[in-house]
């Protein structure tokens, strides 16, 4: 795509002055957007800037309160998701909205099943699903398997296949890469390129600037529900510019400096930990003041290791010793008592009480601490939650709001913020920055580093290799349920880690790459 | 009256004329006297017998020009009935006629009303406390079981069956009246040296009767006699019997519904007899309540006041006397 203004006939979608108000929040406040056929149009903005709301307006989920939506040259007002889909707009939503007890194929064709007289053509659906998944580089996911049995990344791929299953002219992707590991993102980009080559437009949302640089053509930046910049060239606009248009400040995407003090005494000692079929012989130590990162592919068993250490899964082999005391396997309460905290991977299902206020979510582990003789102290809880909200730049800052009304990234901050309260000695973080915007991400890095500096041990998993390398003191690399390398972060670089992570699957992948 | 008519009668909601007593000019008590307000309460009718009780009471009251009939609906359980009665007391009727969900549970209410100076006529389900009622008129549940037991015992002895297989299909087992019926049945059978081989409890409904009947037939491949406590649920029991093509035994019913009496008269089913427990007692209760309200006695008796306790005899209806009872069937 050229970066100068092309003929208007190219424009498939044009939004002007779109407003969407939720009680108490004007989520969109006069948004302008112009998307052309065959381009990847990136939406940037801080958590809560209104990106998801905007795409929900496009997808017919929300009706705008004001403004004009032009689709293929005509003003439209979609009556519902069905109408938008019919018009040729397909969407991958930020929150994974799949049905657990339907198969992969059924999820992909939900609502537009290949059918006659109401009977589903299972074979046809399966075949087409196989083709779609194959296009996505995941022909190995069986179409007849229940979605419930897939990990988060697998579900994301199904969501993508679902969007592809509509013969759409515009595909909207709301943070599709948030749950994807590095190699998967490459895959995603290959698909996006295929799509755009066919003249299909893509609206792409991500908080990872380097992705936008790689795949994007033009960028529209949202700030507080308003368009703060339109149609910037994705490749050439300086990061500093983008960030300042998003945040009004200039924050660099940098990691806090590692202190050169030696880590303290050993906090966590894991020996020979194993669960059959998931991981085996995991040994690891975390010292006070140390940040240990685990890198690996999706499905390499990282989350399982974290959950087993925490007692959320029952260890079948090995020991977990915290502060010199062995923890009983499969007992979260004991782990928490021993001073371990964990921010789990899936915020919606594993971490949040969506209907409850923010502060109660933040104090979910600590509320007994603020209580006197079993009586809770709401004032104190709110004050403490407020402190963390400030620290993490939670928006909106009103801690009495229901968590459900927060944007995805802000929900993630609540999950992490929970463990900043109370006296956690070892913090386990599974994908802590999933969906968190650039500015807040820097804050979060700083918070994690500060925690370590105060003597807390941190054990973190992230699918972003630079994050693991940049933030950790020591890095473990996992592959297929085993730790294949453990080294100080300074001794590893991105290439090394990727090599380690993917050894064994590289050959096959390369063949495929050639084929594609 | 063929089979067709038989069925239709059961679908009528109107009370049977024979179950009430019209103005009898030869009886001085029938003459209009002091106006009496009678409060009435019976459990919500979800089954034929209770429905007949309420209908009879209403119809009997309607036959007297001097009676004001105030019915309060008693809902689904004792608590609901207590609640309804509270509002009735507030209206200060002259007499209360009450068929309680449970005599013991409503004993306290009886006491309260009597203390408040309102005579209480207990219909069918006795209060344990003698101070809680002015008059008790009730059927004889134990006697019903006894009657059924004797009918079956005699018939089997006559046939010369030595160790008979006897089935019993009871009504709702949590009701005390069911226990009394079964106790009477057991005692009467014992006098012949017989006992119940299998006892199932249904729920006074035809569908539950069918189910328990079917199960009973299944458990007992050969049967000599069955006593089914209630003719309403008996419709279902008979259906089960006919579906299973079983006829090696005879059955005795209970209560005395019109359909049962007709079946007995027609003699084309295994139902050979039924032992009565007539809802006509409700009509009598209203008549007596009126007399109590007017301070009169029963004209055939020497006593100047209505006696304190009347127990209806449980009669046995067979093919022979069915025609006389037909008009009493409900």
């Amino acid at each position, binding site marked *: 795509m050229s970066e100068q203004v092309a003929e208007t006939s190219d424009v498939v979608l044009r939004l002007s002055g779109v407003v969407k108000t939720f009680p108490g929040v004007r989520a969109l406040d006069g948004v302008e957007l112009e998307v052309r056929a065959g381009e990847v149009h990136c939406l940037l903005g801080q958590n809560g800037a209104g990106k998801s709301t905007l795409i929900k307006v496009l997808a017919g989920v929300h009706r705008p309160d004001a403004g004009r939506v032009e689709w293929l040259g005509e003003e439209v007002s979609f009556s519902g998701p069905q109408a938008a889909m019919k018009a040729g707009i397909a969407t991958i939503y930020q929150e994974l909205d799949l049905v657990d007890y339907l198969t992969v194929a059924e999820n992909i064709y939900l609502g537009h099943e290949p059918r006659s007289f109401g009977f589903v053509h299972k074979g046809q659906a399966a075949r087409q699903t196989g083709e779609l998944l194959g296009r996505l580089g995941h022909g190995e996911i069986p179409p007849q398997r229940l979605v419930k049995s897939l990990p988060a990344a697998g579900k994301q791929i199904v969501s993508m296949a679902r969007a592809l299953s509509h013969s759409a002219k515009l595909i909207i992707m709301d943070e599709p890469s948030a749950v994807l590991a590095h190699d998967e993102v490459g895959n995603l980009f290959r698909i996006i390129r295929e799509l755009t080559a066919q003249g299909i437009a893509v609206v792409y949302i991500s908080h990872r600037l380097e992705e936008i640089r790689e795949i994007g053509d033009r960028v529209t930046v949202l700030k507080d529900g308003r368009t703060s910049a339109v149609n910037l060239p994705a490749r050439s606009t300086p990061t500093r510019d983008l960030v300042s248009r998003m945040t009004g400040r200039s924050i660099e995407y940098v990691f806090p400096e590692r202190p050169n003090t030696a880590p303290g005494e050993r906090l966590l000692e894991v020996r020979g930990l194993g669960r059959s079929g998931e991981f085996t012989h995991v040994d690891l130590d975390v010292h006070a003041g140390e940040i240990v990162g685990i890198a690996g592919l999706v499905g390499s068993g990282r989350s399982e290791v974290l959950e087993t250490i*925490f007692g959320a899964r029952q260890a079948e082999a090995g020991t977990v010793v915290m502060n010199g005391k062995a923890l009983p396997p499969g007992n979260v309460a004991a782990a*928490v008592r021993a001073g371990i905290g964990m921010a789990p991977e899936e915020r919606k299902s594993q971490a949040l009480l969506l209907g409850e206020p923010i502060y109660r979510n933040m104090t979910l582990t600590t509320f007994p601490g603020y209580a006197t003789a079993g009586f809770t102290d709401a004032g104190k809880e709110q004050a403490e939650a407020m402190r963390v909200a400030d620290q993490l730049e939670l928006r909106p800052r009103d801690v009495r709001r229901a968590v459900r009304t927060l944007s995805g990234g802000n929900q993630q901050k609540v999950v992490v913020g929970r463990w900043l309260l109370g006296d956690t000695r070892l913090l386990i973080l599974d994908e802590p920055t999933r969906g968190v915007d650039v500015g807040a991400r820097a804050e979060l890095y700083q918070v994690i580093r500060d925690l370590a500096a105060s003597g807390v041990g941190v054990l973190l998993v992230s699918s972003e290799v630079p994050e693991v390398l940049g933030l950790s003191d020591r890095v473990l690399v996992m592959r297929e349920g085993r730790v294949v390398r453990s080294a100080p972060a300074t001794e590893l670089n991105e290439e090394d880690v990727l090599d380690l992570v993917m050894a064994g699957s590289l050959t096959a992948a390369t063949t495929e790459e050639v084929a594609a | 009256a063929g089979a067709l008519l038989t069925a239709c009668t059961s679908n009528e909601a109107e009370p049977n004329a024979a179950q009430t007593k019209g103005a009898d000019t030869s009886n001085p008590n029938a003459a209009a006297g002091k106006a009496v307000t009678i409060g009435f309460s019976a459990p919500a009718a979800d089954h034929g017998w209770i429905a007949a009780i309420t209908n009879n009471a209403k119809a009997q009251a309607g036959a007297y020009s001097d009676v004001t009939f105030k019915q309060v609906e008693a809902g689904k359980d004792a608590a609901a009935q207590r609640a309804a009665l509270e509002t009735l007391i507030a209206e200060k009727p002259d007499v209360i006629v009450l068929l309680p969900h449970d005599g013991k549970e409503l004993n306290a209410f009886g006491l309260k009303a009597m203390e408040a100076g309102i005579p209480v006529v207990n219909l069918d389900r006795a209060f344990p406390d003698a101070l809680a009622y002015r008059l008790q008129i009730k059927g004889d549940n134990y006697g019903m079981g006894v009657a059924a037991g004797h009918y079956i015992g005699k018939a089997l002895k006559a046939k010369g069956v030595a160790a008979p297989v006897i089935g019993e299909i009871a009504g709702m*087992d949590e009701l005390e009246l069911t226990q009394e019926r079964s106790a009477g049945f057991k005692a009467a059978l014992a006098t012949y040296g017989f006992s119940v081989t299998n006892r199932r409890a249904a729920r006074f409904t035809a569908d539950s009767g069918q189910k328990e009947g079917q199960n009973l037939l299944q458990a007992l491949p050969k049967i000599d006699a069955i006593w089914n406590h209630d003719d309403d649920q008996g419709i279902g029991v008979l259906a089960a019997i006919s579906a299973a093509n079983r006829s090696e035994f005879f059955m005795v019913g209970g209560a005395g519904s019109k359909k049962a009496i007709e079946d007995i008269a027609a003699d084309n089913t295994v139902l050979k007899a039924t032992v009565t427990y007539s809802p006509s007692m409700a009509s009598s209760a209203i008549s007596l309540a009126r007399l109590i309200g007017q301070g009169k006695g029963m004209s055939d008796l020497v006593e100047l006041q209505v006696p304190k306790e009347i127990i209806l005899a449980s009669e046995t209806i067979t093919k022979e006397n069915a025609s006389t009872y037909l008009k009493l069937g409900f």
Partner: protein
Amino acid sequence: MKDGVALNAAGPRWWKNESAEGLWRNLGLVGVLLALFAIGAVIRPDLYGNIDWVTNNMMVILTQAAAIGVVTVGMTFVIIGGGIDLSVGALIALSGVWATTVATQSFGPAGMIFTAIAVGVGAGLVNGLLIAYGRLVPFIATLAMLVAARGLAAAISGKQTQVSNDQFINSLAKERVLGVPLLVIILLVVAGLGWVLLNRTTFGRRTIAIGGNAEAARLAGINVRGHTMLLYALSGLCCGIAAIMLTSLATSSQAAAAELYELDAIAAAIIGGTLLSGGRGTIVGSLFGVIVFSAITNLFAIANLPTEVQNMVKGAIIVVAVLIQQVRFSSVTQFARRHGLSRPKAGTPQQT
């Protein structure tokens, strides 16, 4: 569909802070109560014109709400905690029957009360054990308990209604304190304690957390199983208390007592705003729910409707009552918003 959240996802209620919604909901129920009162006044002006009668009638309504109200408090906790207790009616019967056996009665009122409560709590613990540690779904476990407890109660009572001869127990239902029946006071005390427990203690917070998202609660270090067990024990405790209240009212107990109380209690809790899927609910709402049901029955008695008509009308009233709550809520909110009474429209995301 279950709780309407999904459908309303885009609706204005989404953001709404829970307490305000609970308030409107309760106001809706108060409206229903007033409407019932008004209907009564139209039907029977003679009675409703008499202030003594009206006061007394209110006490009658509350007295009749007392036992089921106590049960509903326990039920509310169980439902908020993500469960359900179908056995409450049966446990009342079992506790009541056990407390009125000749043997128990020989220990006097303290013995009877102790027995009723111990039986209730014990059976509740069994429920809790089956659910928390046996991993049975609450519906099935408590249904099994319902059936078994009714059977046990029948066995203990020999299917006879057992009369209470204890003057103290029997007098409870007659006692009044400052004109308020003792049973009503017991209900208010239980509800008050329940309110404090739910809203002001860590126990309540855990209950809400477990019902809202059991996995999140577990990962936050809450002992989900132990707590779940306590919830059913609490419900059993309420059944024990209710059993004494019912025994006192009826001066007797029997195996068939408190029939279908489970449905009434669940319905009252839901009408009061408790989410059947767990995680949300209020004691005050449940209390109003129970009182509405009691007032409906009372009005029926006063209007002297035939039972079948009662039932038809009752079905309709339930529907209308719930619809009123909803209409009131959303329209009033809109009204308030239009007149700037509620949270202001913000041009930018809220910065409180």
